[in-house]
């Protein structure tokens, strides 16, 4: 197998232009779904049945549908059924936001569950303001449980952006695949793609390390 990275000289610019779509999609999805995930997590753990049960049902359904199908529904089915027409990038962001809100929502819910029940009761008994105590008391304790899977799913999402090619978003992998067909150089092109994804992921790993230091748990096994 001869390995010739010079293909990046000719095809690199075309592939890298797709990084714009990849990053817009990623940033859009991560930023929008973060607050929604917290709300979903709270609804999943709510004491009120009227909040909890619909959230549980929706979460089960949305997590069960392959993300590609959600994108298809956003881009191909909504215009026909509800006359909602979004361009492909918007539809991709909307579809991924919906999916990630519930995936991340479950992560947040698990974090809330990790805070001993007594504390919730104590806050209620002391009549502390709900939002403030959530932000100052509950969430900081939940962070060690939330951060690792939250970052994992964000890293999953980095690679997931490639699915948007099926609804016409010419993101990086769609372009890379076209370049592979035109040049017959799959290994060289895929290595490059992996490195670029690696760089994006490195930022997320750094974020995880920083936040884990901040909310350090300090529990260690001696063995």
């Amino acid at each position, binding site marked *: 197998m001869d390995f010739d990275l010079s293909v990046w000289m000719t095809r690199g610019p075309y592939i890298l232009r797709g990084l714009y779509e990849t990053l817009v999609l990623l940033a859009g999805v991560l930023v929008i779904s973060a607050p929604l995930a917290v709300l979903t997590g709270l609804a999943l753990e709510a004491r009120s049945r009227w909040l909890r049960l619909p959230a549980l049902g929706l979460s089960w359904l949305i997590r069960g549908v392959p993300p590609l199908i959600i994108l298809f529904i956003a881009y191909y089915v909504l215009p026909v059924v509800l006359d909602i027409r979004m361009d492909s990038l918007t539809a991709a962001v909307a579809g991924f936001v919906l999916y990630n809100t519930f995936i991340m929502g479950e992560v947040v819910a698990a974090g809330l569950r990790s805070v001993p029940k007594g504390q919730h009761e104590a806050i209620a008994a002391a009549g502390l303001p709900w939002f403030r105590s959530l932000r100052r008391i509950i969430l900081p304790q939940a962070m060690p449980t939330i951060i690792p899977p939250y970052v994992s799913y964000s890293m999953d999402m980095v690679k997931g952006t490639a699915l948007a*090619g099926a609804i016409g978003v010419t993101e990086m992998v769609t372009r890379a695949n*076209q370049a592979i067909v035109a040049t017959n150089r799959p290994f060289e092109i895929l290595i490059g793609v992996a490195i670029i994804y690696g760089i994006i992921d490195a930022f997320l790993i750094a974020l995880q390390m920083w936040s884990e230091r901040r909310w350090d748990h300090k529990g260690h096994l001696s063995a």
Partner: protein
Amino acid sequence: MTHFRKTASAIAMTLALVAPMAQAQDFSTSDLEVSLDFPQPWPLENLIEDGKLIIATTGKTAGETFIGENGELQGARIDLWTKMAEDLGLEPEFVRVDWAGVMPGLAANRFDLGCEGASWNNDRLTSNDFFLTRPVKVAIHVAVVKKDSDYDSLDDLAGVKIGGVKGEMELKHLVEATGHAEEDALGLPGVTESRLALMNGQIDAYGTGLHAATALLESEGGDQFKILSTPTSVGVGGFCVNAREPDLLTAVNFLLAKYRTDGTIRELNDKWGLPDTSDMLSVVGY
């Protein structure tokens, strides 16, 4: 009386048959030029966006629609669709979409036109989601093997490992022509993977179209492959038109007939190094 009548009508019939032939002898049809006038712009009522022809393409078919070094879509089909749009008085808009999205997009009214060369089969001909246009090519499906292999005919492929792009007719036809069971064939995700699997020896032959096979032989390192001389199947392939747009179907069918007659299709095939099958298209009546 009755006898006379019968004879008379027989004579009349014979005359009626002979008369036009006698007239036709006065001129030779081979000199005639057929008029292929058409309205410009062509009034199309059902386009998704007025003034635009939205075409879905994967940009992943060598010679037909692919990304050039300048990063632009190019190829014989891109040229043909661009010319078609111009002749219809429309602006072509190409949407680059993965194959998984082409058919849903046509069904959902996102694209006016799609598919760079859909082989006709029963399911596709009878679909309610889109119309198949007249053929743009005769789809010749072949088997590609390594040049240094002993395989020279389809019979040699009985019992060897075969593969091809999963779900494509090219693979199906190879399976049928070599008497394999469908589950035994390696269903690969694309042409690149098929080529690699063949090079690696993971398969001994793969089924593909003559267009793709020719492009493969001409590509870098293509001299290590050969195409078996007997095709696995010969059919036709055309484009897919949004089922909401019967007027566009008529227009596209008309233009394909025109481009075949005036040599546009042949010219583009030559330009992009594709095997030209324009002459063979008369088998399907035009």
